[in-house]
């Protein structure tokens, strides 16, 4: 029971991370799409949306890592050892991204809208690392779901590379990227002030939604051979079909609402679609943390789990109201 609750905590934290921090990454990627007469306004909107909240948003990731190494140490050890390379790349992207954004937006020249040498380097750094981080995050999760961590471990390549350098993990990485861009675009539509700017981001949202949805279907098909445990659980199981149906319906509804210019509704449906994708995946992979090696029953002693749960409960009491205050202050208009 305790380990189930902590597994659930992991899923909820990951969901919060995706819906907040994920959108931050997506917004950074959208820097690549700024064009036309409103390019500067599009960039400014992205920066403005990110500035007060991005640091708080990314603490969810630290929470995930902490719960993992406290409650599920053996799974954590396996992941940290075998997936060392994508985790390292993810870290480098996180560092570059956070620093680049902070330097750029707090710099004197930025506030006066001047662009000089280092400034010109900071924005591409921010954008590139915003692309790499979601890719790596998805690759790591995809490797965990694919069952590849149970394959043979004779050579360096087999131990440290093949679990993640394969079609399924890589496509999950790309899917994560599209998912984050989709979320960001949908949020930015609500936050954009002018009708023209809203239209710009609505277009981007729809493109991202299409890419995401098509890729999801592709992944479903290839998972037959590339992630067999997850595929089997999904397809040879009534429950799996229900999950697919829910995800499908929410996905279509979300896409339709973008076209209908129903901005707040389409934002809510986007979040629901993404949550359905993630929770559907978790439900189908249940009870495995790492296919097919560790379930969440491979947990730390129950005293540790109890202490951790109490700690997290204190955290919820302290942090959630604080987060509410933060969002109310800066996103109140858009809630």
């Amino acid at each position, binding site marked *: 029971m305790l380990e189930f609750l902590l597994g659930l905590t992991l899923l909820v934290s990951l969901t919060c991370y995706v819906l907040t921090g994920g959108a931050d990454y997506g917004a950074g990627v959208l820097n690549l799409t700024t064009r036309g007469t409103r390019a500067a306004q599009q960039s400014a909107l992205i920066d403005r949306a990110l*500035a*007060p*909240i991005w*640091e*708080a948003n*990314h*603490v969810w*990731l*630290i*929470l995930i*890592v*902490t*719960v993992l*190494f*406290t409650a599920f*140490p*053996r799974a*954590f*050890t396996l*992941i*940290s*050892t075998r997936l*060392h390379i994508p*985790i*390292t790349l993810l*870290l*480098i992207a*996180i*560092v*570059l*991204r*956070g*620093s680049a*954004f*902070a*330097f750029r937006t*707090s*710099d*004197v*020249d930025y506030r006066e809208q001047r662009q000089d040498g*280092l400034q010109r380097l900071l924005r591409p750094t921010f954008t590139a690392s915003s692309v790499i981080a979601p890719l790596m995050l998805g690759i790591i999760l995809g490797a965990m779901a694919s069952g590849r961590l149970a394959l043979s471990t004779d050579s*360096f390549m087999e131990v*440290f590379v093949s679990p993640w350098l394969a079609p399924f993990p890589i496509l999950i990485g790309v899917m994560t990227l599209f998912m984050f861009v989709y979320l960001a675009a949908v949020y930015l539509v609500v936050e954009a002030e002018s009708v023209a700017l809203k239209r710009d981001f609505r277009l981007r949202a729809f493109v991202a939604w299409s890419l995401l949805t098509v890729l999801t279907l592709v992944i479903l098909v290839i998972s037959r051979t590339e992630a067999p445990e997850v595929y089997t659980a999904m397809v040879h199981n009534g429950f799996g079909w229900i999950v697919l149906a829910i995800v499908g319906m929410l996905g279509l509804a979300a896409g339709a609402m973008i076209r209908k210019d129903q901005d707040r509704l389409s934002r809510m449906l986007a979040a629901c679609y993404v949550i359905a994708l993630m929770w559907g995946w978790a439900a189908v992979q249940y009870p495995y943390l790492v296919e097919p090696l560790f379930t969440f029953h491979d947990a*730390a*002693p129950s*005293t*540790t789990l109890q*202490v*951790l749960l109490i*700690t*997290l409960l*204190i*955290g919820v009491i*302290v*942090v959630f109201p*604080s987060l509410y*205050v*933060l969002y109310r*202050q*800066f996103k109140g208009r858009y809630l």
Partner: protein
Amino acid sequence: MTDLIAARSQMAMALAFHIVFAAIGMAMPLMMAVAEWHWLKTGCHSYLALAQRWAKGTAVLFAVGAVSGTVLSFELGLLWPTFMEWAGPVIGPLFALEGLAFFTEAVFLGIYLYGWSKLSPWLHLGAGGIVALSGLASAMFVVAANAWMNTPAGFDMDMGHPIRITLWDVMWNPHAFHEIMHMILAAFAATGFLVAGIHAWFLLRDSQSAFHHQALGIALVCGGIPALLQPISGDLLAKAVADHQPAKLAAMEALFETQAGAPFVVAGVPDETTRTIPYSLTIPYGLSLLLHQDPQAVVQGLDTIPDSDWPPVTIVHMAFQLMVAAGLIMSFIALWSGWRWWKGRSFSDNRRLLQALVLTAPLGFIAVEAGWVVTEVGRQPWIIYGIMRTSEAVTPMPNLWLPMSLFGVLYLVLSGVVIWSLGRHVAATAERI
């Protein structure tokens, strides 16, 4: 370069980098809050300008601190998976608490930095106060975890595994209180002196500036008082180390032989093969007096410890001496400033004091880095003192020189950009005030 050395170097770099920003992130919110409080109390506008200027600098430094902290939480697993598998269930909750404290800090810093016009002045100050408090809490939890590595407690052993884990005893292990005090005082002293040095530099060019005078005052109080308390904290901590980690104490003091009436060694470059300390000064009975208040007290030397369990004596001793020297200089300057204040004289028009402040600005952070070298290298060859060796804990992933070099370059570039960015920020201050 062996994989173990590469892993240790990578971790050391990540920690050495992060600690600077973490320390600033602890102390600056208090200083900003003090400045803002002065403004609310006196209505003097330069205090508001000061709080806002400090806030802008803090924003960048906090962000870099946050991302470098993220790296550390991952590197615990990337580099030391065996350690994490063993210790995760024991000290994990401490990291969870630290994460929650940091979460609160990040939230309220966002409110503070971007909410100047959105919140009432007293609420805004309150937000600043919460940032300061949660920063302290965060430091408390994470340093307690490090203290546990030195004095593991709060569990029983069963076939080499920890059972009956009690979080309270894990957290309040024998070194925890002293390490926590020492680090918090160090963070405030180092940040205070750095900020004081910057404003002293401006005062040397314009001794009439009220803005810089006020800034210097706040920095000297927030940095000077901790600098004076630090030797007391250090003394208490050294006594705890003598009790629980005799090998570390012996290395710090380069005490090769157990003896009554042990001397205190000043400076010197210990030679482990000949067991001598050339280029040093000895104060007879000094160490016995310091540790036990008894000139004939016996202090345990490295001779009671098997060679394979010796920490690297040369590095640990020299780092310790550097830290103490830096700390004593800072204490002296704090006393000097305090004496001037007591006599009713201003800091801003004594050029010698201002010059001294500029020169000693980086000393606090030099002391912080040296101190961390003492405690971390002094704990070797253990990662959990007396229980797990660092060599047993390292990842089996080969070619660790590669990620080490990657991160090394990254931190170097980042340090450069931080200095550049702050330089521009400070220069902009010069233009406006």
